[in-house]
């Protein structure tokens, strides 16, 4: 069989066809609201963020100090053993300079790009990165391996969320 010999179907239409009402369609916006349980490990993680601290969880078998903390070690598949405070400093494992918002819309002219990064937190096991944002840095100055430190919201503004850390900024050393 060669594909060329078949009628392959699928009829393309343009987005403008839809906007101009040339096609019948039924739009619907879902109205779904979720409240997620934090669980034991993330609950404690968020509580500590509110206090301006980062807490991890250690498995005494593989000796990994894990972020985000978890009540079971996915590697050893057993309960983890203890809470360990780690630093609010770290190292940029990788980063991006992003001009797109979460819904695929583009950032507006004059707005700064989003600067997501994977940050390996000091005191956690090597390679133990978390997703966060960079700030107080020009995009062209960001380097992999760069040392960074958390910039926290003011204590009274913290709400027990990952966004209690506003972003990570470069530090010397």
């Amino acid at each position, binding site marked *: *069989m*060669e*594909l*060329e010999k*078949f009628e*392959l*179907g*699928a*009829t*393309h*239409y*343009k*987005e403008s066809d*839809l906007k101009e009402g040339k*096609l019948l369609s039924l*739009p*619907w916006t*879902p109205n779904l609201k*979720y409240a*997620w349980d*934090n669980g034991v490990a*993330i609950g404690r*993680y*968020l509580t500590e963020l509110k206090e301006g601290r980062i807490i991890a969880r250690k498995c005494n078998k593989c000796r990994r100090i*894990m*972020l*985000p903390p978890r009540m079971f070690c*996915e590697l050893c598949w057993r309960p983890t053993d203890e809470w360990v405070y780690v630093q609010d400093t770290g190292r940029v*494992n*990788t*980063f*991006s*300079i*992003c*001009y*797109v*918002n*979460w*819904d*695929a819309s583009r950032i507006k002219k004059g707005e700064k790009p*989003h600067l*997501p*990064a*994977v940050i390996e937190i000091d005191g956690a096991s090597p*390679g*133990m*990165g*978390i*997703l*966060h*944002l960079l700030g107080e840095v020009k*995009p062209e100055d960001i380097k*992999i391996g760069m040392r960074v430190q958390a910039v926290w919201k003011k204590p009274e503004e913290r709400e027990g*969320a*990952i*966004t209690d850390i506003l972003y990570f900024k470069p530090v010397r050393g």
Partner: protein
Amino acid sequence: MAYRRVAIVGAGITKFVRRAQETGKELAFQAAKMALDSCGLTMKDIECVSLGTAPDAFDGVHMKGEYLSDGSGGWRKPYMRHFVGGGTGVFAPIHGWFHVASGMFDTCLVVCSEKMSSCHPHPQGAFKTIFDHTTEQPLNPTLIWIFALEMNRYMQTYGITKEEIALVSVKNKKNAMDHPSAQLPMEITVEDVLNSEVLAWPVNRLDISPASDGAAAIVLASEHVAKRITDKPVWIDGVGWNLDTAYWATRDLAYPRYVEKAARMAYEMAGIKEPQKEIEIAEPYDPFDYKELHHMEGLLLADRGKAVEMLLDGKTQRDGDRPMCPSGGALGVGNPIAATGLMKVIEIFLQLRGEAGKRQVPGNPRCGLAQAWGDLMQVGTVVVLRR
């Protein structure tokens, strides 16, 4: 363990388009009907159906497997849907393989259907919920972040440039010019890729495959049945799949271990000792251009950090020593998530039968591979095919 041999005996595919008037069911029906027609079977000859389709959020239809069942021929038959994100399209034939290899059924229709256009204005918003709801979603991530972060880490680790990676996009979009289903066939240059809109550096628009609608299907048969249906069966000699941790930021982003583990499983089953010599043609999953290189390394088809050399030497061109994505891949043919992986399996099927038309690679390859990747960039699915 003893498995029955399983062959692919027929295939079907729709055009891949940005927005299809047809519903997902209608697309599934078109691909499935063509797959049956291609090998002279009817739905009466099909004993069970395996359906692959990716997130329900694209279509806004919860339990999409049930929704798509009638178009897929799953009505009053053993029917099952599974879903491992972008890995679905190669997991679907693996899933079908279970059914036939186990001895439970002699024939299985495998269908993959995807409509990304139902989600307005763009399915990108639906991807936000892939990220951890508490520790990541509040940062307003877009899915492109994880690819940009992974691509940057891959480039940095091995000293690979954006110019070099762009060559994958140039190659695949050009290959797609010979694929009748192709959505984005194009003759472009490295400069075109580099000059296209920067979405999330280092990812430009032309580094990325398009959002697509489309469907694909294959017919699987046990050995004795396959030999009655066709004198050119293509055997599924190895299958492998593997899922890595969802704590994606804690992984080595420069190397896809989950792909390696899946590939090793498939190679062991197929008796492949030296994949670089024995796998003559491959369709690694390429939703982003760097992923073709990244996956060639995970598949052990190139040494770590060295896939780019094969690309620069022209080895991965259709007329090269080791053609990669001769179909045009996700970058060129399009990326209706689940259907893309099955499109890749179909391409290897056609290539091994010498029926790929203008896309046919020289050298009469006997052994090929298709691979897909997905979930929170953590799954590898691999099939090894031989004629």
